[in-house]
């Protein structure tokens, strides 16, 4: 297991290098002169030249890239063009809000997705199964920002049950988490159902039933455990989708997270902020994928050993 963990850790290195390269070149692919953009449109030639010097844009690319990576590793992601403050401190607090939002939404989608998937699989082709699957198909086909708008319209404005926007109190969490978690719940429900159905038809389940093992026990002890393995992978991927989706959800609910911050930074053409935020979110996703692979391995191992 330790060997596997270390090997998997080494595999993330080329990906991390690649991600930093992409983010680094993002800045240089912007049409126009980055120094001009950062110095501002009204800056004169001398100011732009000074900015170019300060940013080290006259150095060869590999020198600039090395500097970018060493600075980033030390938590220095440059300064915001707008506020002049360090990107890392601007990102800091907002980052945790986004992580929190994505984490709760993942929990919700696992919880609802698993229950719905199991119910669907064990009552295959029943009315309930059909209902759940149609519901899941809709959940998958809805733009999350629109779902958010509709939830605000009905639950926050028409009935006045929940707050319209913000983040912090449990009431404020509910609507954004439902907004962001719905698509994930739908995907996990469909995955759990098909995975369960596949497992249920296998010989060892038939054997367990033939031995007279109670149905409930067959489902939860034997079938579910094996059916969960592919679901774990989906959950990991889904976390990434949620991190991306947080951009829209945060915008709809005016949550002061990293996603909304990125969008504002793009509008303001504050590229150091965009660069830093994209880098941080991608790194988080690489880390989560690493954790998912490890837990996948653990789950698999435990079943092998049983």
């Amino acid at each position, binding site marked *: 297991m330790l060997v596997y963990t270390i090997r998997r850790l080494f595999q993330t290195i080329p990906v991390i290098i690649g991600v930093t390269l992409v983010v680094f070149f993002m800045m240089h692919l912007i049409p126009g002169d980055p120094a001009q953009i950062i110095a501002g449109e009204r800056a004169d030639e001398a100011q732009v030249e000074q900015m170019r010097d300060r940013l080290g844009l006259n150095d060869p690319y590999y020198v600039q890239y090395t500097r970018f990576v060493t600075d980033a590793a030390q938590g220095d992601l440059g300064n915001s063009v707008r506020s002049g403050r360090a990107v890392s401190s601007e990102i800091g607090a907002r980052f945790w809000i986004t992580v929190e939002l994505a984490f709760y939404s993942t929990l919700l989608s696992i919880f609802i997705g698993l229950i719905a998937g199991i119910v669907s699989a064990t009552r295959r082709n029943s009315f309930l199964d059909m209902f759940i699957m149609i519901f899941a*198909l809709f959940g998958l086909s809805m733009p999350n920002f629109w779902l958010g708008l509709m939830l605000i319209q009905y639950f926050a404005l028409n009935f006045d049950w929940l707050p319209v926007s913000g983040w912090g109190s449990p009431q404020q969490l509910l609507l954004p988490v439902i907004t962001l978690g719905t698509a994930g719940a739908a995907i996990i429900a469909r995955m759990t159902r098909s995975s369960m159905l596949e497992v249920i038809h296998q010989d060892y389940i038939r054997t367990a039933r033939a031995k007279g093992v109670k149905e409930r026990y067959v489902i939860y002890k034997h079938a579910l455990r094996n059916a969960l393995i592919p679901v774990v992978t989906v959950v990991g991927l889904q976390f990434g989708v949620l991190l991306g989706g947080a951009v829209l959800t945060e915008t709809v609910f005016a949550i002061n997270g990293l996603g909304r911050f990125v969008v504002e930074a793009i509008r303001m053409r504050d590229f150091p902020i965009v660069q830093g935020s994209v880098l941080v979110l991608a790194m988080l996703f690489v880390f989560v994928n690493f954790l998912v692979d490890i837990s996948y391995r653990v789950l698999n191992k435990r079943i092998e050993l049983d």
Partner: protein
Amino acid sequence: MAETTVNASTQETKRINPQIENMKTMWRKLKTNRIAMAGGILILFFIVVSIIGPYFTSLDPNAPDVSSRLQGPSSEHWFGTDHHGRDIFTRIIHGMSITLYIGFSSVAIGMVVGVLIGIIAGYYGKRTDAILMRIMDVFLAFPGILLALGIVAVLGGSINNVIIAIAIFSIPVFARIVRGSTLAVRKLEYIDAVRALGASDFRIIFRHILPNILSPIIVQATLRIATAVLTASGLSFLGLGAQPPTPEWGAMLAAGRNYMWEHPHIALFPGLAIVAVVLAFNLFGDGVRDALDPKIKS
């Protein structure tokens, strides 16, 4: 030895056009799948609406009409009017072609590039494979729409840039699937046979491997269009895609945001339009998957 050559060449002549042969079998399987057919008919309907719909609407989608601002649904304005007095139904009909255009073209570009990368990686293996797939891993490391967002940030917000962004973000998905399928097909005997006959790599890839891995590509393409439509409308909603007054549905939702609390119909109908199109592609994709590729799971 002589015998095997003869066998292989008769097989060659019998399957004069493997692509067409393959398409026919697929169509036969598809026809019996009710879900796929339902989705397919819906998609066809939307395509027809996008082409002829604009000729049937008498109102201008972009002309403001101050006298009829913010009206609810009525017999005159089926879906009501927005804050400029424009007819929402007309705008949705005109927006259909934009949505489908973005969905189809972005996935087509992403598919062509992704399939090429995947097939080259899978066919040549070794270092080519390792290098190409590591690059794909890097693109997959950007969570969800974040990569598309980054690309739009660099290129600027417009419909064409959204297409490029979504195409790039679809490439690794196709590359991965195609690489896997290519690996499986490459090892089969008939590939060895055509290679022994002296077929070039190019011919083997396009005449013999590609036709045999079409199913997973088609399944992925249809499901991917659903994702593309969702992503594009999201980018436009954020103000980074289609710009007002373009009747793009995400942009319509963004523009109507300040008025929708008092007049819910402004947000309801463009959203429902997105759901309808995405649902049609998801239905079709689900059905196609069940019909063509029972092994692939969502």
